[in-house]
């Protein structure tokens, strides 16, 4: 029961299979490994039938986890197959087949075209009854060709029921175990680091809240800068006013000379004073010009 196709060896598997498989191969299961039912339903598509498959097989299957496959035979006629992949795997193992040598598993129902009977062994053959692939005693069949010959000439469909996902990769058990340990440790370290970051972040937030409450400050830097800018304006104006008055007060007055009026309002300083001569007035004008840079507008008038 050995066939070769597309570089993979193919085996038709019945419960009497006794060969040893030592290379990656495709397996075609005989009807002994799955359940089949032909149904006539008022639907058009296979996927609609697949949704109904569990109820089609209700109370008919032994306990297990079943998957379903549907083939459309003709309009409103479908063949529904049920299979338990775990059961199939354990059947394969009990037949001495190592799963690592299994590439894809197919059902005979989807691969056999029913045009002729096939010989499985000396006692049984493969045939179709009402489009359902089944095993029958060879004496009842007109089988001239063996299953090996049949599948040798036929390319397999894409309707496989199982694909060995780890087919081409060899797993080094020790290396995998080591990698798992390293990854667990790294994940733990990362998790601890993240927890520490979260704690630091919370502590920072609480520090900020305390600082804000202690000094009764606004929440955002934007609000803070806006208040600061207002106070800076006040600071500049008040300091300019104080410096100006201090500077003016340091001008030495002679006898019969005096400051008469001083008005400070907004950004304006008005000064009225009485000086002894025009020369002195010029001296004072020059003195005022030397006043350090100020934001205030200083106006001087002289009284006679």
């Amino acid at each position, binding site marked *: 029961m050995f066939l070769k196709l597309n570089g993979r060896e193919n085996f038709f598997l019945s419960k009497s299979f006794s060969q040893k498989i030592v290379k990656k191969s495709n397996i075609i299961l005989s009807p002994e490994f799955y359940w089949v039912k032909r149904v006539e339903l008022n639907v058009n598509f296979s996927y609609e039938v697949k949704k109904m498959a569990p109820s089609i097989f209700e109370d008919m299957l032994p306990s297990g986890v079943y998957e379903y496959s549907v083939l459309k035979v003709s309009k409103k006629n479908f063949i529904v197959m049920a299979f338990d992949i775990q059961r199939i795997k354990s059947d394969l193992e009990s037949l001495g087949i190592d799963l690592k040598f299994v590439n894809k598993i197919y059902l005979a129902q989807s691969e056999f075209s029913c045009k002729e009977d096939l010989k499985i062994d000396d006692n049984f053959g493969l045939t179709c009854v009402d489009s359902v692939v089944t095993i029958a005693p060879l004496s009842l069949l007109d089988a001239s060709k063996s299953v090996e010959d049949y599948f040798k000439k036929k390319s397999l469909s894409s309707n496989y029921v199982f694909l060995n996902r780890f087919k081409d990769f060899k797993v080094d058990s020790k290396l995998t175990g080591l990698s798992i340990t390293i990854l667990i440790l790294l994940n733990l370290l990362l998790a601890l680091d993240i927890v520490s*970051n979260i704690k630091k*972040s919370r502590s920072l937030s609480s520090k900020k809240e305390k600082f804000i409450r202690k000094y009764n400050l606004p929440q955002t*830097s934007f609000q*803070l800068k806006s208040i*600061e800018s207002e106070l800076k304006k006040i*600071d500049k104006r008040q300091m300019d006013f104080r410096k100006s*008055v201090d500077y003016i007060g340091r001008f030495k007055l002679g006898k019969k000379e005096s400051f008469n009026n001083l008005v400070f309002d907004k950004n304006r300083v008005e000064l009225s004073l009485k000086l002894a001569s025009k020369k002195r007035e010029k001296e004072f004008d020059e003195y005022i010009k030397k006043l350090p840079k100020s934001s205030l507008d200083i106006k001087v008038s002289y009284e006679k």
Partner: protein
Amino acid sequence: MKNSLKVKTLIALFVIFILLLGYKFVSEKNFKEDYESFINYKTDAKNLILLQKKWDDKTKTKQTIDSIKRRFKVDSLELINGKYIMKLGSLKKRDLDRFMATVLSSNLIVEKLEVKKDKGLVSVFLEVKR
């Protein structure tokens, strides 16, 4: 443990590792930004606190006003629209120098000041922000 299970575990752990690594970088970046923002906030706040102590201390302003009231002959003192309005009618020159020294060395926010001299006596009008 079966090999396939080991491989699945390895893949799951690797995915968790990548996710944790991403989360770690994001959380670290956020913390760094928060920290820098807090430091900047603190610097700005210190400047603000200094300015507030200098110009926005209502208690200190009240104390200075009370002190002026005690030390000089104040004709009237009113608090209107958040402003102290003070009038002093007959200060001598020596008193004026002391008054000006008190005002200029204080934290009072002077909005308006008028000093007028008339026949040896000085009258003062002072408007100060509360």
